[in-house]
């Protein structure tokens, strides 16, 4: 069964460093998302990406964040200069756009980012 994959499963970085989190969405899907969950808190929407551009972003998704779909299969989230408060689990998700059926969202296993 197709699934969303994410790498790495755990990333440790120093404050101020750049990190790139990687996701491979389900191959025929068209909408891609990043969510984050700070430990012990709610899952929060960060950004949606459709047709090679950001379709919506939350207040959390500031200039330090960027997303890219560089090669038609990978979907990446870059944090330019990490802060301690960026420590969280980051989930990637994707949705297809089949006509006439409900388009279910599928989530990856997550990347735990720890900023020291």
């Amino acid at each position, binding site marked *: 069964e197709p699934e969303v994959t994410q790498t790495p499963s755990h990333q440790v970085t120093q404050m101020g460093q750049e990190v790139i989190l990687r996701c491979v969405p389900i191959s025929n899907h068209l*909408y891609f*998302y990043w*969510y984050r969950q700070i*430990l*012990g*808190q*709610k*899952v*929060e*929407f960060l950004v*949606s990406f*459709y047709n090679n551009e950001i*379709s*919506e972003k939350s207040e959390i998704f500031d200039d330090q964040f960027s997303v890219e779909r560089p090669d038609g299969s990978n979907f990446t989230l870059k944090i330019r200069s990490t802060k301690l408060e960026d420590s969280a*689990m980051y*989930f990637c*998700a994707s*949705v297809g756009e089949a006509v006439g059926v*409900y*388009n*279910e*969202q599928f*989530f990856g*296993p*997550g990347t*735990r980012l720890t900023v020291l």
Partner: protein
Amino acid sequence: SQELEQSPQSLIVQEGKNLTINCTSSKTLYGLYWYKQKYGEGLIFLMMLQKGGEEKSHEKITAKLDEKKQQSSLHITASQPSHAGIYLCGADIGNSNYQLIWGAGTKLIIKP
């Protein structure tokens, strides 16, 4: 505001007993997702319910979607230690880009 309320916030249940967790939306529910999570770990997909009063079961877990109440309930029958964890609901409330909103989670503890 777009809110998804989960209740209860936490639950301690004697092993073998039944329990119910609720997820109530302030907006129309087009899809409702139930996930289980161990603290600090990833999301384990349980069930997805679509608009239309759907009910699904998997092993001892049953979830229902009540459109009129804009609510979903997750019911566990004859709870076991393996059911312990955090239960999260995520909802599709018809946002133009299909993104989900999330409840705060229900922490379930099973007492032996």
